[in-house]
């Protein structure tokens, strides 16, 4: 892992952490709240749904609050933040030659299997993020920084879930023993 990191010249994680912490602080200072990500994806999904099956939106209370009637689900700060994340990630990748159509996967499985697991993992993430009312960016980072109990409980649960399952799925990521 260290070898890969050095080859790709990723930043020192502590440096990244400090910069992220300063950004998080500035976000609170200027916007009164922290960062977020899953909510933006949620809203874009709802916006697409709204184009295709608008009547269904109005009948489902959870989504109606975002897109019912003539409410625009994209008229929310988090959608713009997500757009920024995509741009920022892209530019950073471009600057370092990391923008390449490829699949990252552990050495013991194929790219195709990886796609399947990525999809399933994403689905669990999407569901869990809504259930927890936030994702690692909004709950763990932002909520954690302002000492919300729910956010810290959430954070520990995420790590518990990940570490708990890690041994059983080590074939996905670990090199041959």
């Amino acid at each position, binding site marked *: *892992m*260290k070898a*890969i*990191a050095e080859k*790709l010249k*990723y930043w020192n*994680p*502590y440096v*990244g*952490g*400090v910069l*992220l*912490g*300063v*950004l998080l602080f500035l976000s*609170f*200072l200027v*916007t009164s*709240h922290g960062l977020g990500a*899953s909510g933006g994806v*949620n809203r874009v999904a709802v916006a697409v749904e709204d184009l295709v099956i608008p009547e269904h939106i109005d009948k489902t209370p*959870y989504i109606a609050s975002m897109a019912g009637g003539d409410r625009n689900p994209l008229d929310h700060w988090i959608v713009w933040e997500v*757009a*920024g*994340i*995509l741009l920022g*990630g892209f*530019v950073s990748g471009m600057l370092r030659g*990391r923008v*390449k159509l*490829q699949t*990252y996967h552990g050495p013991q499985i194929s*790219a195709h299997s*990886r796609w*399947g*697991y*990525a999809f399933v993992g994403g*689905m*669990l*993430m*999407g*569901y*869990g993020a*809504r259930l*927890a*009312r936030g*994702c*690692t*960016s909004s*709950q763990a980072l932002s909520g954690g*920084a302002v*000492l919300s109990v729910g956010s810290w*409980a959430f954070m*520990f*649960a*995420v790590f*518990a879930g990940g570490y708990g399952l890690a041994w059983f799925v080590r074939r*996905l*990521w*670990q090199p041959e023993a």
Partner: protein
Amino acid sequence: MAPFDIAVNLGAGAYYFIYLPIGFAFGFILESSGFGDSRQLAAQFYFRELRVLKVMFTAIIVAMTLIFWSTALGLLDYDMIWVNPTYLWPGIAGGLIMGVGFILGGYCPGTSLVSVATLKIDGMFFLLGLVAGVVLFGETVSYIDAFWHSSDMGTFTLPELLHLETGVVVFLVVCLALVMFIGFEWLRGRLYGSSR
């Protein structure tokens, strides 16, 4: 005193001038730290890489210290900043599910966006899954409505829980994070040998 509610003054312009740049910086930092790479992220759970822990917790303690020094000096109004309300059990349940999703999928929502931005196909599949999961939730939440609204403790902070002063809690959290960094480094050294 901050926050200045800039959004009200700028109107929709706030979206362009404030949130887009914030998101940009967020994505840039994440990608530069290697978070667009699912192998790096998953390696966290095998103690081979400590990036996730280091970046996340460093970010939290740095932001926390800056925030609370600002409130202490009267530069920022703590009562006006968004503190996530605590819904204890949905949060824990959601967190566990997300942990499983993390180790299976290799990303979290924010990092998957970065991954997609650098054209990683596994990131794209993850994002599709994310959308599916989110839609699934929206459709089925009415069945678990009671659970989803349960254990609503409102705005509940660690100082309130522990009956300690905010500053003391901040200090304890910083200590905890530093101990964790040192501990995990040691653990990694034991598991994989000092490959420094």
